[in-house]
């Protein structure tokens, strides 16, 4: 009899199979899956990090605390980080310095603060190239930095997490904090974009 060549089941059926096996063992608390999906999409959003950035722009004491101990500072604002993310390093961009975060080994981020990583952050192109060809990759992504701007790449290889504190656009100085939070994007907190008009 010839060997039967079987294809993998479609991935959605594999997920459903694991979920059913867990259900049959009573491992899944009622509502857990739907609640999780809701939290992932409604609570782990870049608005959290944006609020921390806007606070740092308008409150020098908070800015100092955020740069000294990022996790304690974002918790002041009511945000949470998983227990195993013991430390949040906040990287301050300046007009002459661009910090960029990545995870070459998998796709780690401070997802509760800057939101779940976008697809491109997890793709092999970004993971393989951004550490070695940072200026080229940023230019391809629309951020064409002058040669005099220094680039620092941060590879997330431990459970310490990183976020970028973008430069406040000069013309927005004096605006109220809640309006400032509206212009801060996830990309600017990953470090692949600067904040320039027109704002989102």
């Amino acid at each position, binding site marked *: 009899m010839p060997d039967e060549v079987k*294809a993998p*089941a479609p991935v959605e059926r594999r997920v459903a199979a694991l979920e059913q096996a*867990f259900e049959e*063992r009573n491992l899944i608390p009622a509502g857990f*899956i739907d609640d999780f999906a809701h939290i992932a999409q409604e609570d782990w959003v870049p608005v959290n990090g944006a609020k921390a950035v806007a606070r740092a722009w308008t409150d020098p004491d908070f800015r100092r605390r955020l740069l000294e101990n990022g996790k304690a500072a974002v918790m002041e604002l009511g945000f949470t980080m998983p227990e195993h993310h013991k430390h949040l390093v906040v990287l301050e961009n300046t007009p002459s310095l661009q910090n960029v975060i990545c995870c070459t080994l998998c796709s780690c981020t401070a997802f509760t603060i800057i939101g779940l990583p976008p697809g491109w952050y997890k793709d092999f192109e970004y993971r393989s190239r*951004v550490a070695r060809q940072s200026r080229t990759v940023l230019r391809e992504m629309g951020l064409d930095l002058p040669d005099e701007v220094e680039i620092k790449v*941060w590879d997330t290889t431990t459970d310490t997490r990183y976020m970028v504190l973008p430069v406040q656009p000069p013309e927005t100085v004096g605006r109220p904090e809640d309006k400032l939070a509206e212009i801060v994007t996830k990309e600017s907190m990953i470090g692949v974009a600067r904040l320039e008009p027109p704002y989102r």
Partner: protein
Amino acid sequence: MDGVHDLGGKQGFGPVRCASSRTAFKAAWEPRANALYSLGVRLGLINMDEYRHSIERMEPRHYLSASYYERSLTGFTTLCVEKGIVSQEELERLAEGLFPLSLPSAEGRLNAMPRESFAVGDRVRVKNEFVSGHVRMPGYIRGKWGVVVGISPPYPFPDASAHNLQSQDERPYDVSFRTEDLWPQAADQATVHVGVFESYLERAR
């Protein structure tokens, strides 16, 4: 392990496709897969290090062709099977098709003994070590010199924790490397900062 997951500095990949993939989830099964893995962490079925290693152990062609959440599902399910929570046969019966899993693990290792502590500003070298089990040292820093710029709180030592070996928690250091030292003549000028566990480091002499 020197696996295909260790992508930093690998050449041949094209431009980042940023316009097409801004959202975190692309299909309805993805948050469900993510929820099951998260439940596994919450129930204490798995730790983060064995989860990451379970993904690295995927057959390379499967790893490179699978999406992020398929890799997550494959790694987490592999651990559930290895720990006897479910069997592959049961899952394949329920899925009505094959359920490919990751390949078996090599042996883990314990913390380096003795280890040195470092301070911000210290010049350090990443040991020239080759580790067949789990390790969180990207290959591109192996044997390279750098400068300590930050110190994190102690974490479980991944090389042991991923294999459920008892070990001491240890501190990783943010170490700054120059791209011209990492990839001479073939990189954009920048510094690359990597979180490097104490066991992987020695003092520059």
